[in-house]
Each structure stands twice: as C-alpha cells, then as structure tokens.
C-alpha cells in the first residue's frame, strides 16, 4: 500500500514538473512573440539559455502536444535570431536612430515645424489620369445600350405555358450540353489555333475569334479564354498600341495555377463584332 501511495506521489510530482516545464515553454513562446510584434530589443531574449533549457526538457516529452510546443518554441527562437541579424544590419545603417530620441523630438516639435520638415523630405509621385478616345467611344456605346433603370426593374413576365422538364436530346439540340467532353473541345480548338498560326508564331486575337455569326464569335472567345487560363496559349497584350495577340504553346504548360496570373476582361458587343468583321473582310 505504502509503495503504491509513494508511486502516486512520485507520479503526481512528475506530472506537476511536466506542467511547469510546459508552462515555461509557453512563456518562452509568448516572450518571443512579444519581442517580434512589439519591435522590442531581440537581444533581451537569452537565446543560449533558452536553447539549453529546451535541450533539458526534451527527454521528458512523451505526448504529441509537448513535442508540438517544443517545435513552436524552437521556431520562435529561430525568428528571434533572424530579428537579431536584422537589428545589427539596421543599427549599422545610417537610418538607425534611438527610437526614444526620435519620440522625444517629435513630442517637442510643434505642428508648423513638423510640416516644414515633412515638406523638405517629401517627393510626391506624379500621376495622371486620362481617357483615350477609344475608351470614350466605348463608354458612349455602353450608355446608349443601357436600358433605363425603370425598365430593368420591371418584373419578368409569368410563363404562359406550363413548365415541363427538358430532355437530354433537347439540351443537345440547344447546345447547352454536348456529347463531347469539354477537354476534347478545348484540345480540338487548340489544334485549330496552332494550324491557323502555323509559321507566324502569333495571331491577332480578333482575327482568330471573329467569326461569321456573333454567337460563334462569343463561343470562340469563351474557348480562347480557357486556352489561355489552362496554359494552352499565351496572350500578349500591347497596352500602348492596344493590340492583343495569341501565341499557342507547343505543349500545354504544366502548373499554370501555381503561377501568379492576371485577368484581362475583353468586352465584345454586337457593334464591336460588326466593326471587327468588316475590318477583317477588307
């Protein structure tokens, strides 16, 4: 009995010790975080002592939670060492001034003098905003085509016929669904682009997508956007000349979604389609 109770006491001591060590780990992490976020002096953290302690605690850890905390503490120490490096670099540059000195000065200097100081060290960016003739034309077109708000607010008419479900055949006929998978369609379209470009390396975006009908043009623009997004072709935009070119890749690019990409919205209305078609036929 005595042996058992002694064992219990010993066990609870170990448990208490573990809790204390864990608390120490938490304190180390919190100290490192406070130095990191409050821009405190990273040399106030005694890295060597902490690393010795971590080494001492390590054999006691048994459960996953302890190991995770240990790793977190080690990671915090690594951040502190990195901060110490930056601290030395900063102090060795001409930009280093004691923060207290700056704080004292800015508290004492009056508003007028601060403005004077700012004006002597401020070199504002020069930027201009302007509209090109093309943009103004697009805006006018947009305005002319825009339905008045009152009309847009009108309720949708109630359907005259009874609602029925649509069969697969009808959806195929309406081109809402297709027998061919989207990937196959895209692949065929890519081959078409490569054939059209052949030896020229690149082709004007408009001459490639503009077709005999407006619907077909929209469909081709839609597929082209997927060709570019999925890495089958590259879109080259010349902002100054306002020209867009398509350059098909020899092989589809891999890892396209891991690269930083940008979206290029291209509006195509009927008037634009007509004008592009006319200029193409000329």
């Amino acid at each position, binding site marked *: 009995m005595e042996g058992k109770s002694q064992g219990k006491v010993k066990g609870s001591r170990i448990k208490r010790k573990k809790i204390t060590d864990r608390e120490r780990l938490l304190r180390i992490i919190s100290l490192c975080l406070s130095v990191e*976020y*409050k*821009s405190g002096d990273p040399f106030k953290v005694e890295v060597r002592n902490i690393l010795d302690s971590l080494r001492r605690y390590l054999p006691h850890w048994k459960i996953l939670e302890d190991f995770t905390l240990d790793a977190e503490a080690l990671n915090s120490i690594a951040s502190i060492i990195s901060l110490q490096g*930056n*601290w030395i670099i*900063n102090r060795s540059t*001409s*930009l280093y*001034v*004691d*923060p207290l*000195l*700056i*704080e*004292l*000065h*800015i*508290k*004492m*200097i009056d*508003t*007028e*003098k*601060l*403005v*004077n*100081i*700012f*004006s*002597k*060290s*401020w*070199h*504002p*960016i*020069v*930027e*201009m*905003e*302007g509209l090109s003739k093309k943009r103004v034309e697009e805006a006018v077109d947009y305005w002319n085509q825009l339905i008045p708000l009152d009309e847009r607010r009108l309720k949708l008419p109630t359907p005259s016929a009874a609602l029925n479900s649509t069969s697969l055949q009808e959806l195929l006929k309406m081109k809402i669904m297709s027998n061919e998978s989207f990937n196959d369609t895209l692949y065929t379209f890519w081959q078409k682009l490569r054939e059209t470009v052949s030896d020229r390396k690149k082709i004007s975006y408009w001459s490639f997508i503009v077709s005999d009908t407006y619907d077909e043009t929209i469909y081709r623009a839609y597929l082209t956007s997927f060709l570019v997004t999925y890495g089958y072709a590259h879109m080259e935009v*010349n*902002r*100054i000349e306002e020209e867009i070119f398509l350059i098909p890749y020899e092989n589809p690019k891999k890892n396209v979604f891991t690269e930083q990409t940008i979206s290029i919205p291209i509006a195509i209305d009927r008037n634009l389609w007509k004008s592009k078609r006319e200029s193409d036929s000329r």
Partner: protein
Amino acid sequence: MSNDTAAYMRRVKKAAKILFYKRHRQPGVKGWELRKTLGKNYLSIIELLNRQLENLDFEVKIVYETGEKPEDPTNEQLKQARFYVTLKKPLSKSELVLSGWRVDDVAALTVAIAYIISKQGKAPRKEVEEILREKFPKWRVDYNLNRFQRRGYLNQDDSGILYLNWRARAEIDQQTLLKLILAEKT
C-alpha cells in the same frame, strides 16, 4: 535625326506615357512591364527619360521590393522593382498646403512615419495612436491613421502592427526626415 536616334526618342516617349499615366490602381510601373514594352535595354531608355525630366524637376525613382536599394541590383530585383515619376526637389510649405493637405494632417503623418522608421519599420498601432493623441483628438487620430493606410503610406497587419507602405517608401526621403527631426531645436 538618324533612324537610331528617332527610334530611341520614340521609346523615351513611350516610357513617359507609361510612367505618367496611371493604369493600375497603384501608380508606377513594375520593371518587367517596362522591359516588356521598351525592350531589353529599358534601363537606358529610363536613363534618357530621366535626363529629359531633370529639366522639369522630375525624376524616375526606383523602389525595390525590400524597400532598400541593393548595392548592385540584379536583373530580377529590377524586374520586381516599381518605377515612379516623382518630384525631384521637395515642395515649398505653401505648395504643400496647396496640395490639399491640412497642416495638422501632415504633422500627424510625419510623426507616424518618423516613429515607425525609428522602430525599424514597424510599430504597434496603439503606440502610434498614443503618441498622436498627445496633440490630436482621438477621432482625428483614428481618421488619419485609416486615411494614411488608404493612401498607401501605411499598412496594418492582422495583429495591429503598422508598417511603412509603398507610397511612403517611394515619396519620403527617410534619412532626410530623421536628420531634420533630430536637427530641429526643441
């Protein structure tokens, strides 16, 4: 004018057009965009443009991603850097007032930026607020700190730490600012 010179001048004009006209939400152009439009020797074109702008007291400023100018910038660092056109000489006090800034707002910006620079480029918002609230009411401090962030002078992370943002790095000569503050007799 020889063909070469004419071609160079065309590219200088193109560079001016790209740099002056704001095309994105943020002003300025990345190095890779200039390279794409002006060609491989875009830096010589920018140098030529700089010479032309010098007469008008403007200059092309390059702000690197790290904030500090590397000793010998690599092609990659230049591609990622942002190029701006800025005023070469600082504005006079009267010109500054004409630029639409209130005097006390400029003072608040100066204090916030100087404090953050002295704290190695980052400081808790609370500390900046504390120092500003010694001279400005709370509502004005909040309004200004948010406004400085919207304008791109400051940036705040999720933990409430304020950093210098792209506009402060491009427009403010940090060294001169600190020197003048320290030189001011209080």
